[in-house]
């Protein structure tokens, strides 16, 4: 992976929402096939950053470029943070994936062998063949997550954005989805940017991490970024990066945390005690 194929470049991106700065000078770039974690606590600006990349939120300053050119809709696959699939809709998992392929086209879809095959392959790739013909609104959270990943990937985007896809999954599904995304990104050359509030499930998989705190970001290799001095300077007060039993925990000194409570109530990423 050299600098040759930049899939995404974010340069000095600033966003203000409701009069409050939400992103401040965010800089990072992704190359094709790279798997990147977007880590930050609740309210740090992860969703806003992803929506800015999609062009849903205008930038105040800076620029966001895709594959060297401007933003192109459709060239990005997206799995939103909170998506409630209505059980009242008559859509099977395979219909949702097919809509990812050509849902923006006008007119009814003509039956097509190659289209059906591509959908079938995608369903198999995410391990959703088993429930491909079930109503999508009635599937479990993890199953819906897989279907939505397939929906996003089926048109072979150069960039895949996933907003907290691991939030509601158990340990096993989390590991499976991460491994799956890792594999798919390697195979297809799709750059993956995945947001999460806990970095631990991603530690072994991430090529790169973008760490957000109160809208400011640092980016780099995981062991370059997740360090006491780097994160302390990002937060603006002292935090300790502690490694226990192969997990990373970021701990803030309590007194400092209170002084900064307005924006960062919970800068501590702890792993659940087993």
């Amino acid at each position, binding site marked *: 992976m050299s600098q040759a194929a930049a899939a995404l470049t974010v340069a000095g991106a600033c966003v203000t929402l409701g009069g409050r700065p939400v992103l401040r000078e965010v800089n990072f770039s992704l190359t094709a096939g790279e798997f990147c974690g977007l880590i930050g606590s609740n309210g740090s600006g992860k969703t806003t950053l992803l929506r800015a990349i*999609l062009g*849903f939120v205008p930038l105040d300053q800076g620029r966001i470029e895709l594959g060297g050119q401007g933003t*192109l*809709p*459709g060239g*990005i*696959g*997206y799995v*939103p943070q909170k*998506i409630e*699939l*209505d059980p*009242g*809709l*008559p*859509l*099977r998992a395979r*219909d*949702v994936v097919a*809509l*990812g392929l*050509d*849902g*923006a*086209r*006008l*007119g*009814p*879809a003509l039956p097509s062998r190659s289209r059906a095959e591509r959908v079938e392959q995608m369903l198999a790739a995410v391990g959703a063949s088993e429930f491909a*013909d*079930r*109503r999508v609104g*009635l599937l479990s959270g993890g199953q819906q997550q897989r279907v939505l990943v397939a*929906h*996003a990937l089926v048109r072979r985007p150069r960039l895949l*954005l996933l907003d907290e896809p691991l939030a509601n999954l158990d340990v096993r599904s989390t590991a499976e989805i991460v491994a799956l995304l890792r594999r798919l990104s390697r195979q297809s050359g799709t750059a993956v940017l995945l947001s999460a509030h806990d970095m631990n499930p991603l530690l072994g998989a991430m090529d790169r991490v973008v760490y957000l705190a109160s809208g400011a970001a640092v980016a780099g290799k995981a062991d370059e970024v997740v360090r006491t001095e780097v994160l302390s300077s990002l937060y603006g007060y002292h935090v300790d990066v502690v490694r226990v039993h192969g997990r990373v925990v970021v701990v803030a000194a309590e007194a400092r945390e209170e002084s900064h409570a307005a924006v960062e109530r919970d800068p501590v990423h702890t792993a659940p005690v087993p």
Partner: protein
Amino acid sequence: MVLTAGFLDNEPMRIALSVGGGAALVCAVVGVATVMRRQAFAAHALADVSSAGGSAAYLIGVNPLLGFLAMAAAAAGIMEWADVRSARERDLLTGVVLGAGLGLAALLLYFDATVRSVGGAAVTVLFGSMFAIPAGIVPLALAVAAVALLASAIIHRPLLVSTLSADLARAQGIRVRAVALTHSVALALAVALSAMTVGAILSTALLIGPAAAALRLARRPASAVALAALIGLASTWGGTVLAYESYYWTPGRGWPVSFCIVTLIFCAYLAASWVGARAERPQVQHPSGCQGH
């Protein structure tokens, strides 16, 4: 039951069957998307508001279908223009537009009765009169039906993605507002057409009933549309023939067409939800937490 021979030779009957059939078909197709998008209330509101247009048409003496069309399109335009996102605001806005439109209808019908002394206008506008559709309306009605069907077919897929999730659609490059506006226009056309046939008040049945019934059974959007069209057509034609025949069984007046059609639609809905519930039972293990809305 013995059908009276030759009901197809009867001119009003032929018109009723063709315009009614067109309305049923359009309503079924547009209705499926409408129910999926939770716009049943909006559909009903458009129908009621369009009755103000119908009343105005009687007042100034133009083609009533034009009146229904103009008012339905205006109301749809207002609701889309306001661009309200949250479900609560949409519910409220629909209610307010409905209230204002009905108030206007009240006034216009009052003028129909007092200024033009068209006493029966209220009944005709609100409850429809399938057997009294003037032949001159047929070409316009069928053209409106064709336009609505075409528009629905064109936006079929983008509308489905938008219904699933607006963000997902936007990420795919779909212009969500334009698609929604096109759907609303198709809805307004469907509503005007059915208001003309079964009456403003009952067009909701034609629009929502077959679609809701089909959605209880179908597993795919395309089959939902086909099934809804089938139910809508069968109920409309069956109801029209039933009403026509009822003149011969009942002493004197017969049953109103709207009553026959709506009753058939409702029976179809009950049957569909019974079958649908039976088919679903093994799949859904614990509906205990389900709140029904």
